[in-house]
């Protein structure tokens, strides 16, 4: 258990270090995700504990960003001025993205040897 937590924290720390050193706008945790993926590929073995720990974290993601969402308390001016525009842009962008992603995926499936993957 401790080892799984250590692995997650070490990857995040590495990601954070790369983020600071390169000055990239890519967040440290995202670089950390790529580092963990590389680690899993380099040191392949069964990792039930890591799967359990990261699964628990992912399952409780929602409560973790509540404190950030409460930060809207200081954004009243922005919301009253751009609220409608934000709603319109978010709805349009989400619908377009869904359609484009699904259509491109289906189109590109024709180049895949017909798999029975389901």
């Amino acid at each position, binding site marked *: 258990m401790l080892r799984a937590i250590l692995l*997650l924290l070490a990857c*995040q720390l590495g*990601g954070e270090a790369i983020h600071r050193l390169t000055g*990239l*706008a*890519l*967040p440290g*945790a*995202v670089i*950390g*995700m790529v*580092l*963990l*993926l590389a680690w*899993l*590929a380099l040191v392949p073995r069964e990792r039930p504990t*890591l799967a359990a*720990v*990261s*699964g628990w*974290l*992912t399952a*409780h993601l*929602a*409560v*973790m*960003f*509540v*404190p*950030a*969402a*409460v*930060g*809207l*308390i*200081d954004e009243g001016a*922005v919301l009253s001025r*751009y609220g409608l*525009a*934000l709603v319109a*842009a*978010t709805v349009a*962008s*989400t*619908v*377009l*993205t*869904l*359609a*484009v*992603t*699904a259509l*491109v*995926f*289906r189109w*590109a*499936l024709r180049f*895949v040897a017909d798999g029975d*993957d*389901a």
Partner: protein
Amino acid sequence: MLATPLLWLTVTLGVFEAFDTASKRSGRHPLCHPVLWATPVLIGLLLATGTPYATYHAATLPLSFLLGPAVVGLAVPVWAERARIRRLALPIALALGAGAVTSIVSAVGILWLLGAPRDILASIAPRATTTPVAMAVAGQLGGIPALAAVIVLFAGVVGAMVATPLLDALGLRDYRARGFALGVAAHGIGAARAFQVDATAGAMASLGMALNAVVTAALLSVVALLV
């Protein structure tokens, strides 16, 4: 006592749990997402008690801290799906690229046309990624993390609600394409919806969410270098 993390952590978990129970009873309807309801209630409590956001933010840092390791852990389901990723490499790569660009360009483009300033554009640009990534990317680009969190949440709810009628209307029956699109367009909330419909769709949606977190963040960090 008001200055220690104990009070606001307890209150935050308590309020969230109450709405999470209600959300479970609703069969996880997207409009009953607990964050959608817990956030205004907590804002009300801060206002009623005259607590500045800075105090609340500091008190709830132990909770926010977990977001980082949670994002890193998204690598685990991606690794577990490596056989499927290899088999479907081309559809995944093309759909992911097209989806990420569509999401950024349409969201930023519409707001730009409506005259929004740069910090608002930076807040909506990562709207298709999972919330912690969107907050971090928005912060990096000079946007408002709290605004990004709420935009992303709303996008998830919209995606989960329109996906079935929209994809049916487009005649898309392949659950791999449907699930992947939901994950790319509507992150975790979309993935939760996909899991309700079909296990393959759910796995593809989780994959789409994790991969898009990396691709959108990378695209936007390149854009940040250019503008």
